[in-house]
């Protein structure tokens, strides 16, 4: 709040200036008015800049524009004061003109500050409560991560997400009978059930929409109406359906999205997030509640909630297919997510390999590279030396000849310098999407285009001086028999090299996608890879197996994928959980005790039992009973979530 004190100080100075003027001390009054104006102009802006650096994003959104209002007010006051002093007083010409100038400048500054205020206000994010902003920030940060750990690096959700289409399965629909986008479904219906097969991308869909929504609401959209938000006037979020067992939406959401040091109260979700804005809540994976009784209770609760007239919740339930009577009890239209078609699979492959290539190309800024200024030095140092020697000689000659000689030397040197400069300024390398363009020459123009439609070798060479002054030689080898293209004295050669290399990755993306899709086709997998999870598994296995081939059945795909997961779990101690020793032992199970893993799988599919207790019982009944000595039941874990590269995730509630 430093700016407030600056504003108060400015106002005091203006008042003092008026007082001094009234008492006849016009020179001091003028000085005070000048200082007040300068303070008013610089203080708040500087303070605002400082606050931008130190204030978290979430809080900053609410305050910014008011600094401009204060700036404008103080400047306007200064302007009136200075103008008043000038008009009312009988000052000498000097101070009078000075005050008039201050008055005009202050008025101008006030106008600029007001315009800045209007612009800042238009860019200001929507006024939301702190807990809603915290939720959105968490969603934006985390929703790009996969819900699952794949045992190997997988591109972020938003990079490989393919927009889905859906078609009505049951219930009334105001939409066309044919496939429509999920966006259309969500905008056109208050409550929806989205059904898809195993791995059909339900969770990915929920996460992508939540992230998109969070990005919009946190973005500079103050001037836009809420109707323009993605999916209409709603804020999207999601919660796993299993977390609704024995609780309500608000508590489940609060528990799911609260983080250590960032608790979100359940009240946040009981009220509307903003005026005339609803929550769009994805209840993800209803089918994962294996206990039919519990599922029925959750369905009844959701049904009641969806029928409550004053509810701030719009509900989207995602699930695998369930018996018609179950999903029908919600009273919402049931849509089936369309599986990937061949075009979707191709889109997925392009996104996947683009994301891989983009790892190195994220910082691409297409730009023009000039030659380094050392070229100017190289071009003029010798003529300069010669010119100096000649000037020294000419200096010994008599009057007129000396003058004439000096003029000629300077003219020749100047002309030479201009030519060198023009040559330097006309030479450039421009990096565009598909090509690099080299240009040089003033009178005769040389232009060479190097297409980036194939893989290129790009190298740089820098001398010691080049490293110090940041220039060097760039060679681009496109496989031309004539040899590599050489560009010397390039400014920031490493940036140029990285950009050219990254852009040539476009070709890599096309080639890799084509190879992947060909293998998918050869393995007769096109019909099977119609869901994002399986497509992701196949892409991972394709990369890990060095493009050797893909399994031909879903079971074999899972077999290889589980192997990837288990290898990932053996990456090292840093991937191990940090909580109780028993958890750590449990997570070794996939490679060491398949029978326990199977017991856990049976229990998860049957539902109703805490899997950790199942594991404890199993351990009690086997030779591993000694492991129980390591745990202090029921304090099995610590707060937080522990993810591993195994098929089992140990989850501790926040």
């Amino acid at each position, binding site marked *: 709040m430093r700016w407030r004190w600056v504003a108060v100080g400015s106002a005091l100075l203006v008042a003092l200036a008026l007082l001094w003027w009234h008492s006849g001390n016009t020179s001091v009054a003028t000085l005070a008015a000048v200082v007040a104006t300068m303070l008013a102009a610089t203080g708040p802006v500087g303070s605002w800049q400082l606050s931008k650096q130190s204030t978290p994003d979430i809080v900053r959104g609410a305050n910014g524009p008011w600094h401009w209002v204060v700036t404008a007010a103080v400047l306007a006051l200064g302007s009136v004061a200075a103008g008043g002093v000038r008009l009312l007083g009988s000052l000498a010409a000097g101070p009078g003109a000075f005050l008039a100038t201050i008055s005009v400048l202050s008025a101008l500054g006030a106008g600029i500050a007001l315009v800045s205020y209007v612009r800042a206000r238009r860019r200001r994010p929507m006024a939301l409560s702190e807990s809603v902003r915290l939720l959105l920030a968490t969603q934006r940060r985390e929703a790009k991560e996969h819900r699952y750990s794949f045992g190997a690096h997988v591109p972020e959700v938003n990079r490989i997400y393919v927009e889905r289409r859906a078609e009505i399965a049951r219930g009334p629909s105001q939409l066309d009978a044919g496939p429509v986008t999920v966006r259309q479904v969500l905008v056109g219906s208050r409550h929806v059930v989205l059904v898809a097969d*195993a*791995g059909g991308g339900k969770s990915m869909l929920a996460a992508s929409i939540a992230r998109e929504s969070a990005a919009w609401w946190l973005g500079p959209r103050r001037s836009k109406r809420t109707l323009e938000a993605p999916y209409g006037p709603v804020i999207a979020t999601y919660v796993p359906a299993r977390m609704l067992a024995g*609780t309500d939406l608000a508590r489940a959401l609060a528990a799911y999205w609260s983080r250590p040091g960032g608790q979100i109260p359940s009240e946040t979700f009981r009220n509307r997030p903003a005026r005339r804005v609803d929550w769009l809540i994805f209840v993800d994976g209803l089918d994962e509640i294996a206990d039919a009784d519990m599922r029925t209770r959750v369905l009844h609760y959701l049904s009641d909630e969806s029928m409550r007239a004053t509810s701030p919740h719009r509900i989207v339930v995602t699930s695998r297919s369930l018996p018609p009577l179950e999903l029908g009890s919600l009273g919402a239209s049931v849509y089936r997510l369309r599986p990937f078609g061949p075009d979707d699979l191709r889109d997925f492959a392009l996104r996947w390999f683009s994301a891989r290539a983009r790892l190195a190309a994220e910082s691409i800024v297409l730009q023009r590279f000039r030659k380094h200024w050392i070229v100017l030095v190289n071009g003029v140092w010798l003529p300069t030396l010669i010119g100096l020697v000649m000037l020294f000689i000419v200096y010994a000659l008599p009057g007129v000849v000396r003058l004439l000689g000096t003029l000629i030397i300077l003219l020749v040197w100047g002309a030479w310098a201009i030519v060198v400069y023009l040559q330097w300024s006309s030479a450039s390398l421009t990096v565009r999407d598909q090509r690099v363009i080299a240009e040089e020459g003033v009178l005769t123009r040389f232009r060479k285009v190097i297409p980036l439609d194939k893989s290129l070798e790009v190298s740089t060479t820098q001398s010691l001086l080049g490293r110090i002054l940041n220039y060097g030689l760039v060679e681009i080898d496109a496989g031309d028999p004539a040899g590599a293209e050489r560009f010397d004295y390039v400014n920031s050669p490493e940036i140029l090299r990285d950009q050219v290399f990254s852009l040539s990755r476009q070709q890599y993306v096309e080639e890799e996608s084509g190879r992947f899709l060909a293998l998918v086709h050869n393995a007769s997998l096109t019909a099977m890879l119609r869901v994002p999870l399986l497509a992701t598994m196949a892409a991972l296995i394709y990369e890990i197996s060095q493009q050797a081939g893909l399994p031909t059945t879903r079971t074999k795909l899972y077999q290889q994928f589980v192997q990837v997961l288990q290898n990932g779990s053996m990456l090292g101690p840093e991937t191990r959980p940090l909580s109780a020793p028993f*958890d750590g032992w449990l997570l070794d199970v996939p490679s060491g005790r398949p029978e326990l893993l*199977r017991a856990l*799988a049976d229990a*998860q599919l049957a539902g109703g039992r805490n899997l950790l207790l199942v594991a404890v019982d199993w351990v009690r009944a086997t030779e591993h009973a000694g492991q129980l000595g390591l745990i202090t039941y029921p304090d099995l874990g610590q707060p937080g979530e522990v993810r591993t590269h195994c098929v089992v995730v140990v*989850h501790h*509630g926040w």
Partner: protein
Amino acid sequence: MDGDQPFFWHQSLAEYVAAAPRGKDFDRAVWRREITSPSTRSLALFRLGRSSEDPERLVRYLRAADPVAAGYVLVDGVTVSAGLRLSVVDGLIAAGQGDGATAVESLTLAEQLSQNSPA
């Protein structure tokens, strides 16, 4: 609260693990029940994939008894002879032309199977 408990990060992984063969028995009656229900179909397909059951024989049996189930087995990538595959597709198209409850499902499966034939 989700409580302190481990879980498989994707239901299909639990199904894959649970489908590990136990003994040499493949109970066809149980399997038929599982493949018919949408909620246990994935488990049934894993069971078949991880068993020593002859898929050719099973699909031949299903072709007449339950063409939709036969379609799901083939979409899962199970390889059978070209003639049998073709007859399953024909059966699905025939079922799709009727007005039974599985008409749309049958046509969808036939469309999927027509997208790529075995190499």
